[in-house]
């Protein structure tokens, strides 16, 4: 089993921690994992992304050019990474913001009204958890519980009070898949 995913969005949308939570959960479940962020000033203002690789066997290169799954939280990310999805792969994206959806027919598309639901939860910051929920549901590579546990590891102490909200958002995200399919 091997999953090569990239999480992309605006800086501040929390894409890096999405990838980290997934990697952490997979590690807890005994997988080999590797997480690689985009870094440096070009992040600032602009877009951020991270690659998360999960595998049963040793991971050779942390940097890859084609992905099983692209998780896109903004338009530039779809524009940039649609072409990088392996045939048969998937794009999971926030359909509220992304007005020009991906067009490829040889891959699975999962439009998620993430920002919309986030507004319902009165907190745009949880968009990443919603989408991560959807991702977990779609790909079921790790157990949802493990992700929730991962929250405790990935979030700094001072933010642990936010865990219930994030948990809720995560579950909303999972449910959005049920509803849309």
């Amino acid at each position, binding site marked *: 089993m091997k999953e090569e995913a990239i999480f992309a969005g605006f800086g501040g949308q929390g894409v890096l921690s999405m990838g980290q939570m997934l990697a952490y959960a997979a590690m807890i479940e005994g997988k080999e994992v590797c997480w690689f962020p985009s870094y440096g*000033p070009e992040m600032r203002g602009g877009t951020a992304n991270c690659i998360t690789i999960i595998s049963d066997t040793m991971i050779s290169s942390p940097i*890859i*050019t084609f992905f099983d799954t692209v998780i896109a939280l903004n338009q530039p990310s779809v524009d940039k990474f649609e072409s990088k999805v392996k045939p048969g792969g998937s794009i999971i994206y926030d359909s509220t913001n992304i007005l020009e959806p991906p067009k490829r027919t040889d891959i699975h598309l999962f439009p998620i009204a993430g920002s919309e639901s986030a507004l319902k939860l009165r907190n745009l910051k949880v968009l990443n958890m919603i989408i991560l929920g959807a991702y977990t549901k779609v790909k079921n590579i790790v157990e949802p519980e493990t992700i929730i546990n991962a929250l405790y590891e990935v979030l700094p102490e001072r933010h642990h009070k936010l865990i219930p909200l994030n948990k809720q958002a995560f579950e909303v995200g999972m449910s959005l898949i049920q509803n849309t399919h």
Partner: protein
Amino acid sequence: MGEIKLMKGNEALAEAMMRAGCDAYFGYPITPQSEVLEYLSREAPFKSKMVVLQAESELGAINMIYGASGCGKRVMTTSSSPGISLMQEGLSYIASAQLPCLVVNINRGGPGLGTIQPSQADYMQAVKGGGHGDYHLIVLAPYSVQEMVDFIKLGFELGEKYRNPVMILADGAIGQMMEKVELFDFIEKKEEAPEWATTGRKPGKDRVYITSLFIQPETMENVNKILQAKYREIEKNEVRFQVINLDDAEYVLTGYGLGARICMKAMELGREKGYKIGLIRPINLYPFPYKIYSEIATKIKGILDVEMNAGQMVEDVRLAVEGKTPVRFYGRMGGMIPTPEEILENFEKFFIYGDKDERNRND
């Protein structure tokens, strides 16, 4: 079995530093390694008694290292390419005065200010001596976050064993990526300083001084002879490398650090296509594992050396092989990282379909 964590290379390195009983860290921020000083600033006050100081510059940092190491303490600094260039005079002094210390270069793309993306273009600087005079750093090239941790301990030990500066040469990717690591436990430190250290005169003992100045050339030559003898020792004892699939190999892929990791993947892909490819990964860049290359050279059809630079380590490979088998080079420069597919493609171009555009032997 030690604590298991998911950590960034730079942070794992900083954590290992504390656990290895580092007494002092002096450094100056630079991407892609600033996390080291940041992590220490956050964690050290709670986990260790070590000194953590942000110097006014890399020049300041490397000379603070000189002073603290001269007191017999475990000291280190970290930086990235331009900052390491500024340390060259200091490193030459440290090597000449025979002070142990650990210097980490999280190599980024150059030359000049360049880019902050990962690179391996500082190989020559690290291995052949970027500073003036005849000296060597012991150079370790980790290819995983785990080795970032393990080489901190090894690095301190080698430095103290040989009274020589040690460099960990990793690229920005190893520093930035997160992987599973097993952390060793905090080390108990033996407190008394070596007798060469300046700790204030010991009653009854003569004063000690630390210097790299030997104005009489005869004396300076003797100092050099002592250094050279030490380097021969190191070359005898400290060669480290990893080999995979050499037994049935017809071709060898070689590279270090991240490059080697990507070569492993390329080797897998190649073997899937039926090519008998083996791999050699130097773990020490100095001392370099010349022997394994010269031994294998006569048994194979060619070596493809892969680096994230314009071709630096390949000179050492060629020195080892002495023309006994073709040595080809494939590299990406300026912060670009080769993909396993690219590597295999070039491997086929060079060795399978026959190479149209052979490069000048000696570039």
